[in-house]
Each structure stands twice: as C-alpha cells, then as structure tokens.
C-alpha cells in the first residue's frame, strides 16, 4: 500500500474513533493481504504527527495511542459553539433583587412580607455568588437575621454610579407609559420567558 493511501486510512479511522488508538488496534482495520507492516504504519503515523491534515486536524500521540484532534487555532470558534446560552433569572429572583436594592438594608423576612411569599434560599445564594448583595449587619431580633444590601458590583453591572440613579418609586408608579412599551418589548419573547422561568423554578426549587 502506498504511504499516502495508508495515511488517509489512518486519518479516517482515527477521526471515527472516540478514543486514542494504539498501534495494535490500528493494525486491526486492515485486511490480512493488505496489511501494512509495523514499520510502514509507524512511518505513516510519524509523518501524520509532523504536519496537520488539511491544516485543520492534528494527529497526536498520547499515552494510550494516537488520536485526531482539531488544531488549536480553531479553539476560539469552537468555544463559541459550546457556549451555552445564558439562562434567564426567574421573576422571583428579580423581585428579590430589586427589593434588596430599594429597601436595603433589609432582612429576608422583610422581603417576604412585601412579596407575600417565602424567599427562596437558592436565589439569595445566587445573588451572593454574583456578588450583587452582601450582609451589612444583623438585626436585633430573635434569630438575628442578616441585613442585606447591594454591592458596588451590582451598581457596576447596571451601569449606575449610585443607587440614587435608580428611578424613585413615584417614578416607577408613573412609569406606566414607559413600562407599557417595555412590556410590549418583553412580551415579544414572553413565551420564552415563561419556559425559562418554569425551568428555573424547577432548578431553584
């Protein structure tokens, strides 16, 4: 067998395999009467390891054998493909966050009073993980509940210099017109929202 043909077969076989193949396993694919000897096989593999195939595929020898992988140059593109679309936060999440922003320093119980439902622990956890809230003290009440407040990171994320820049509640009340147009915008992907929210509630439950 010509070495060029041999190289093509090796590339095809390596690309199809989901794990590295040893020299022995590579040898298996050939017919008895067409089998390259070990020397030929090694020679073909050595050549393949030196130069990328089609400038895209790199043949590499690793501990358990040979494998085909994609040239590192294409990693930035591949990463984008794998990036998961960011999930969206649930309504409960947003309400909790906005209440902490407007009522800080605030305890969980106070948030619960306003929202009328228990605050989900995992929401608070996520808010801490994003470093959007922090504990600024404890209230002198039984159980000494934590007082929650927003952080600089929270302001940064929303491009705010200070909390003052958030609309006042009156403004929000009178925001109807502005909100109506916002709502319209949001409604466009309302169905999507609903799905995401349901998902999250399962996850966050």
């Amino acid at each position, binding site marked *: 067998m010509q070495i060029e043909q041999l190289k093509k077969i090796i590339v*095809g076989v390596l*690309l*199809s*395999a*989901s794990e590295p193949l040893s020299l022995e396993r590579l040898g298996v694919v050939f017919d008895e009467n067409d089998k390259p000897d070990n020397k030929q096989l090694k020679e073909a593999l050595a050549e393949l390891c030196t130069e990328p195939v089609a400038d895209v595929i790199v043949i590499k020898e690793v501990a358990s054998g040979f*494998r*085909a*992988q*994609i040239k*590192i140059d294409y*990693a930035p593109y*591949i*990463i984008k493909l*794998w*990036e*998961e679309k*960011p999930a*969206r*936060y649930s*309504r409960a999440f*947003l*309400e909790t*966050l*906005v*209440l902490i*922003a*407007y*009522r*800080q*320093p605030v305890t969980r119980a106070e948030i619960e009073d*306003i*929202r*009328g439902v228990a605050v989900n622990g995992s929401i608070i956890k996520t808010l801490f993980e*994003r470093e959007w809230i922090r504990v*600024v*003290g*404890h*209230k*002198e009440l039984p159980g*000494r509940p*934590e*007082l929650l*407040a927003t952080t600089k990171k929270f302001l940064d*994320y*929303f*491009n705010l210099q*200070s*909390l*003052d820049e*958030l*609309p*006042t*509640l009156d403004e*929000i*009340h009178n*925001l109807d017109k502005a*909100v109506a147009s*916002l*709502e319209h915008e*949001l409604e466009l992907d309302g169905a999507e929202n609903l799905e995401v929210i349901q998902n999250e509630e399962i996850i966050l439950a």
Partner: protein
Amino acid sequence: MEESVLSNQAAVIPADTMLLSAEGETYSARIRGEPLLQMPEDLYIPPDALEVFLEAFEGPLDLLLYLIRRQNLDILEIPITAITRQYIEYVELMKAFRLELAAEYLLMAATLAEIKSRLLLPRSKDAIEEEGNDPRAELIRRLQEYEQFKEAALQLDELPRVERDSHLIHAEHPDMKQVKPLPEVDLKELLLALKEVMQRVELTTKHQIVMEPLSIRQRMTEVLDKIRQIEFAEFSTLFSAKEGKLGVVITFIAILELLKQALIDIVQTEIYGTLHIKALSALPEE
C-alpha cells in the same frame, strides 16, 4: 370435513429452501379440522427451520406476493385457483406448527376463497356493474400497494446510513477552557419586577409601603459599613463636609432611620461628650 392429503411437497416449497423431504414422502394435515397434535414424523428438516422459513414472510400479503413472483406471474393475472391452493398449503403448515401468525394468514385464505367463489358464479354484465369491480381488483390493489412499500423498504436499507456507511467524526477538541456565561439582567426587567411587586402589595394590603429616597437607603448601608469596620464610630466621622449640606442631612436621616430600626445605638459616655455610633448587631465576620 374430510382430510386432504398434501403430496409432493417439493412442488409447494421451492427446492432451494430444502425444507421438506424429497419426492414420494408425504404427510397429512387437517384442513378445517382440529390442529395437528403431532408433528409429522417424516420431515427430515427440524421444525425450527420451517418456522424460520415461514417467519421470513412479513405477512399474508408477503407470502402471496412470494407465491406469485416465484412463478413469474404478473399480479394482474393471478391464477387465483393455483395461488390459493398453494397459499392454503402454507397456512396449513403454519397451523401444524402452531405459529402465532396463522390468524392473519387464515384471514387471507378466507379472502382468497371468497374471491374464488365469486369468480365461479356466472355473472351477467349487469351484475358486474352492480357489484362494481372484479373481486380480484381489491386484492390486486393491496398486493401492489404492499409490494411498493416492500420495495421501498429494501431501497431504504440500501441508502447510505450512519453507523454502517457514514461514519461521524469524533475529533478531540483542542484544549480549551469553557466559560459558562451568567444570565443577564436588564434594568428594565428589574424595574418591571418592582412595579409588579408594588401592584401586588397594593392589591393585598391596605397600608402603603413607603420607601425612603434611595440616597438615604444607600447612606444607611454606608453607615452600617463604616461601623462594621471600626465597631465604634465617632458620630462626626460619618459626615463629610465635601457633600455639603444636603449630604449631611441625608446622613443624619440615615442615622435616625437606623436608630429607629434598632440597627444602631448612639452612645454618649459623658454629657456633651463625643457621640459614638455602635452597631446593635454583632456584625458578620468576613
């Protein structure tokens, strides 16, 4: 019913299948009688093999097609008599071996018999018109339709397919760090959420929730922050002259609000002495 003797099996089952013994050997099977209680002894092929042969048919239509094709007949010219005879012989074999599939085959046998009986009746032209199509027409239609799909199935099997012909590629990715992006929030969404909470609150409670201007809320947090760092803060250090009068007022209101909420205490050790602000709560360690 009387028994029928099926002889010359070789003529029924094609020679290439080599299922039954050579000429001269016969066996009996009951037609419309009780099922055979004993396997015929003069078969030199094990019953399993026959079973495999019969199960090779995908159904009564398939068997019928096989019989027609074996004799190189056009479907349109099925000699109903001959075909029916052969068909029924097969069905008898199936019955003899108590194959599960016999029911559907029996139905076909009945259909064939019915067609035959209708063909036997002398019919006037009027009768033909009245009854509509030749009784064979429906059978032919079904056979042709089935054959179409039988062919299509074979062709589908020939298409190059994944796992057998088209091998998908499992190339290793280059090493890369994967970043899972965090969900994004728009300020609009946040405000809408607040509006909704407020509307809900208005619906469910009578008292209005009054929220202080945010600057005071922010200042409250800042004051708490400061005393958390130094535990006792001198009252005056909480104010910054740079912020002007308004800043001082805001800080002062913030301190009063904190006091009201029992979050801080103001301590004065001697009359006219320095005021100290103390957190009423043990502050979190970080």
